[in-house]
């Protein structure tokens, strides 16, 4: 178990990680029509989904200590996202015949410039369908998404473990796990929607120029998570001290 002050700092750090992770996960609602690169849903909802998968995974190793909980959360989240990307790419490639192409890279507007996939070196220009902003998830966006999911899952697991540690002295173990799970999910949803305002419904991950607006997300999530963390700390302290109204 960890002390309440460290747990409060962990909630803040977890909330910020959750917010920042959304910038790395490629998602776009118009991806459903193969009209933009990224998984076919809003960035915040996808990140929330990956985060919840991470929290479920983390809950299985709650008795094993902090490190296994964080690793379980991160891996569970990344696994969920990679499976989603794989299935999305299969449907797009074999269902409608659209190859995975980064729209931003194809038009030379990616973070690192050029028109090639930064990792595989595959040319993107020329494969993009006219009138679209790319389609599917090419390798560089998969890597970006995996990094984002690992961060998000670890952030969710941090919040989960911190709330669990803070509430355990006041309630039974199974209740502490249930409460920590739903509070961690709440913190995840609060922080994952804020970056969506910056991303305006679409991002290709770290290769999208919108990654440069990350400082706004960082500040917003830091302030929001700090307020939430202070509230959780104060109420847990009241409950543990026996000051129950």
């Amino acid at each position, binding site marked *: 178990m960890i002390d309440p002050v460290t747990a409060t700092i962990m909630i803040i750090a977890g909330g910020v990680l959750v917010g920042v992770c959304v910038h790395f996960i490629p998602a776009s609602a118009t991806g459903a029509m193969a009209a933009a690169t990224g998984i076919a849903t809003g960035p915040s909802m996808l990140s929330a989904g990956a985060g919840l998968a991470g929290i479920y995974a983390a809950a299985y190793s709650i008795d094993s200590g902090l490190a296994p909980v964080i690793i379980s959360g991160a891996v569970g989240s990344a696994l969920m996202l990679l499976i989603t990307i794989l299935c999305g790419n299969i449907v797009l490639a074999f269902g409608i015949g659209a190859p995975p192409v980064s729209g931003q890279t194809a038009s030379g507007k990616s973070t690192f410039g050029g028109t090639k996939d930064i990792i595989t070196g595959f040319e993107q220009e020329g494969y993009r369908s006219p009138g679209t902003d790319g389609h599917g998830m090419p390798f560089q966006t998969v890597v970006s998404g995996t990094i984002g999911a690992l961060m998000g899952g670890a952030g969710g697991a941090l919040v989960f473990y911190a709330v669990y540690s803070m509430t355990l002295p006041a309630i039974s173990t199974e209740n502490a796990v249930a409460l920590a799970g739903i509070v961690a999910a709440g913190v995840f949803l609060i922080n994952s929607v804020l970056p969506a305002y910056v991303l305006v419904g679409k991002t290709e991950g770290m290769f999208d120029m919108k990654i440069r607006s990350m400082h706004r997300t960082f500040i917003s999530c830091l302030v929001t998570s700090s307020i939430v963390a202070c*509230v959780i700390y104060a109420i847990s302290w009241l409950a543990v001290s026996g000051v129950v109204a």
Partner: protein
Amino acid sequence: MKEIQIHTLFGAALLSGIAGILLIGHGISIGIVFLWLPFLSAANSIRGMAMYGLGTGNASIGYWGTAVGATSAFVVSLSVSCRSTPLLYVAAVVAISLVIGLATGILADKVIRMRIPRIELNSAVIAMSTAMITAGSLLILGNDYGLYPFIYIIITLAVLHPYNASTGAGENQKRTLLLALVEACMTTLVIGIVAMLASRSSIPVSGDVAIVAASACGLVIAVVAWYRLVKSDIYEIRWTGYPPAEH
């Protein structure tokens, strides 16, 4: 037609929500009908934010708003007994959700620069309304931690769906709010049924039956009224067979 202002609807929802929670807290389970107004208030504020073209979907804003409200209610229930001191509980829940909702709205406006009119007011209203609904639901269902995710999801869907379903050409506040009322009745109906089945429900079965009966009556009335309004609103479209020019 003149629209109902956010603060007018929320003022009514706040009074109604507190009255409902106090009634339920004193064993009068039928007080749950007073929680219908907070549903309307939350749905109206989601409409207020989403109609300006958010960078996120209606679903996200519903999930986010309920996350603030429900998380506040869940956390406070750890320390303040919702059963023995309902007034203190609802005051703590509303205050905490107000602070978090307002802070997030101000950050979205000033730091992220969303430039949506009244984003901070709408954020706070969604958070407080959903917090009151969660507090009322917890009073009925008892502190059964296993039911927390269920409470969260059922409230989220009821507040995010009305605008999501009504959006598009010809959307108006009256129809969206009426659909919100339909979904509010549906939600309290399900809460009543779950309370009957839940072993740790904090009110007697007769109270649960009263919730189910009141919600079912409300649901029938609201569905009929909403269906009539839908028919009246689509009159021009039905008559000509083409969308009217002004839409």
